[in-house]
């Protein structure tokens, strides 16, 4: 909803300078953050940024277009393996690995999207879920390339400046900003209008000249390429990957839950959802370790019962009700 408002009207009459200052302060804080953080918080901050990328990526296909994808883990894992294989062969530098992983995931998503985006609703959800499992099995069995169940060790990275932890933080930060930028540009473009029309009524969208199939494939490819890049950075960051880690089905569930938490189809909802979710998850793992696994379930149930439209939309509606 916010996205649609943002797309059709100029932002609320906040003074332009005010917005500029706000953005500059936020960016400054994000850039300066590593200076004041110990290793634990650096890891947490990098993780938050990574999940922001995954949540924003899911938002393209799941939020804007309304196709409930569970394919995030598939492309996160694909990107992680692409990056790991290229880096351990020592044929590319670190900074190139997320770019190539993204390009690879984009291409794969276009090819796979053509058949599975013909499916709607539950059928599409199941097909996208299967994708991750197929990729995981491939990584398991293609031992010559992927090391199979043994996984891949990545060569240690020697950062040009700063520490290794800082390098990965900044890499994730850049990727998160690219993802946010893509989200904003798409939400305001013709493509964004096409996405919203398809979500509301695909048949009527076709009738007004929207190439629904093409638009859906583009959305799916965006929501594959960006997690792919995140996967490549993640692989270098942790230094060792195996199929059950990077194709973890939980990532396919967490991303949509984060978006639902923050607000579907909005611009900042996914990031807010990711932050709330991860802070909550940290808290639970620290204080209620035995209960940690039940948490995702409780969040999902609470979301469905109390905030089916996400935090931003619930707040907006409450505000509208008071006005």
């Amino acid at each position, binding site marked *: 909803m916010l996205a649609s408002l943002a797309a*059709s009207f100029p932002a609320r009459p906040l003074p332009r300078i005010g917005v500029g200052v706000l953005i500059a302060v936020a960016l400054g804080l994000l850039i300066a953050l590593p200076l004041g953080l110990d290793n634990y918080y650096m890891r947490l901050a990098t993780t938050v940024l990574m999940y922001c990328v995954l949540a924003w990526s899911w938002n393209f296909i799941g939020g804007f277009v309304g196709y409930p994808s569970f394919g995030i883990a598939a492309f996160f894992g694909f990107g992680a393996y692409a990056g790991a294989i290229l880096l351990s062969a020592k044929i590319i530098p670190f900074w190139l690995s997320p770019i190539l992983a993204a390009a690879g995931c984009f291409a794969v998503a276009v090819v796979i999207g053509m058949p599975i985006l013909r499916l709607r609703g539950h059928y599409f959800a199941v097909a996208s879920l299967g994708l991750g499992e197929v990729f995981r099995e491939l990584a398991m069995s293609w031992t010559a390339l992927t090391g199979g169940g043994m996984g891949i060790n990545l060569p240690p990275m020697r950062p040009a400046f700063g520490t290794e932890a800082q390098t990965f933080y900044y890499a994730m930060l850049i990727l998160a900003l690219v993802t946010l930028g893509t989200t904003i540009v798409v939400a305001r473009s*013709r493509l964004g*209008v096409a996405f919203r029309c398809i979500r509301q*009524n695909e048949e*009527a*969208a076709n*009738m*007004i000249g*929207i190439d629904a199939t093409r638009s859906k494939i583009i959305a799916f490819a965006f929501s594959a390429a960006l997690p792919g890049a995140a996967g490549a950075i993640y692989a270098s960051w942790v230094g060792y990957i195996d199929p059950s880690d990077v194709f973890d089905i939980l990532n396919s569930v967490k991303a949509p839950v984060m978006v639902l938490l923050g607000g579907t189809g909005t611009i900042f909802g996914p990031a807010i959802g990711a932050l709330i979710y991860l802070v909550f998850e940290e808290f639970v793992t620290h204080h209620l370790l035995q209960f940690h696994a039940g948490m995702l379930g409780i969040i999902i149930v609470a979301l469905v019962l109390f905030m089916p439209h996400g935090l931003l939309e619930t707040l907006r509606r409450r505000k509208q009700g008071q006005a």
Partner: protein
Amino acid sequence: MMTAILELRGVSRHFGGLRAVNDVTLSVPQGRIMGLIGPNGAGKTTLVNLITGMIKLSAGEMWFKGARIDGLAPHRISRLGIARTFQIVQPFPEMTALENVAAAAMFAGNIASQSEARDFAESQLERVGLLELRSTLASRLSLGQRKRLEFAKSLAMKPSILLLDEVNAGLHGGELAEAITLIRSLAQDGLTILIIEHLMKVVVSLCDDLAVLHHGELIANGPAQQVMGDEHVIKAYLGERYLKRQRAG
């Protein structure tokens, strides 16, 4: 011989054993209002779905402005200048009236700039008398207003031919009169109109030509007065309705 803007040649659509549309050959002359009438289940909406590419032909050919269009995807057909309204209105509920019409202008209307699309959309909303409701969500409009929104959306596509599927059903007296005036003014501007209509008084007051479908087959086709005097038509369609009305009365 008038030039035909849309030509159907031997068009059929079978669903299993059911011949929903069977071997229909029909020319829609440019710049006129043609009524498509027939009893419920005669295949009128199926024919519109075939023309707009929503469902595929089982047999036959369709030509629009001299180019073959059967087999094209719906979005391509709509970009060529064929617009339709739905029997059950299909707005984008979470978008405002203006956003709905602007989207149509942007894609089928082929207006690249979003602000130009909105300007054009405003002029179309004004044309159907919906301008003051431009910021209202489509889901909050009344049925009559939604029908007018559907009209504005179709017009924003800059069509050469407009297919109206029971656009007047459910409208009350005043709204109906307005709709008739609007349709007539569109025809005067040179738009070709194919209208599916059940209300005979609308058919009589609007249509230059009539095509009558019965069990999926075209049983009559020609100038309105001539078709309404046709024996088959009276038997298959007008007579039945007339008898029903007599019994009800």
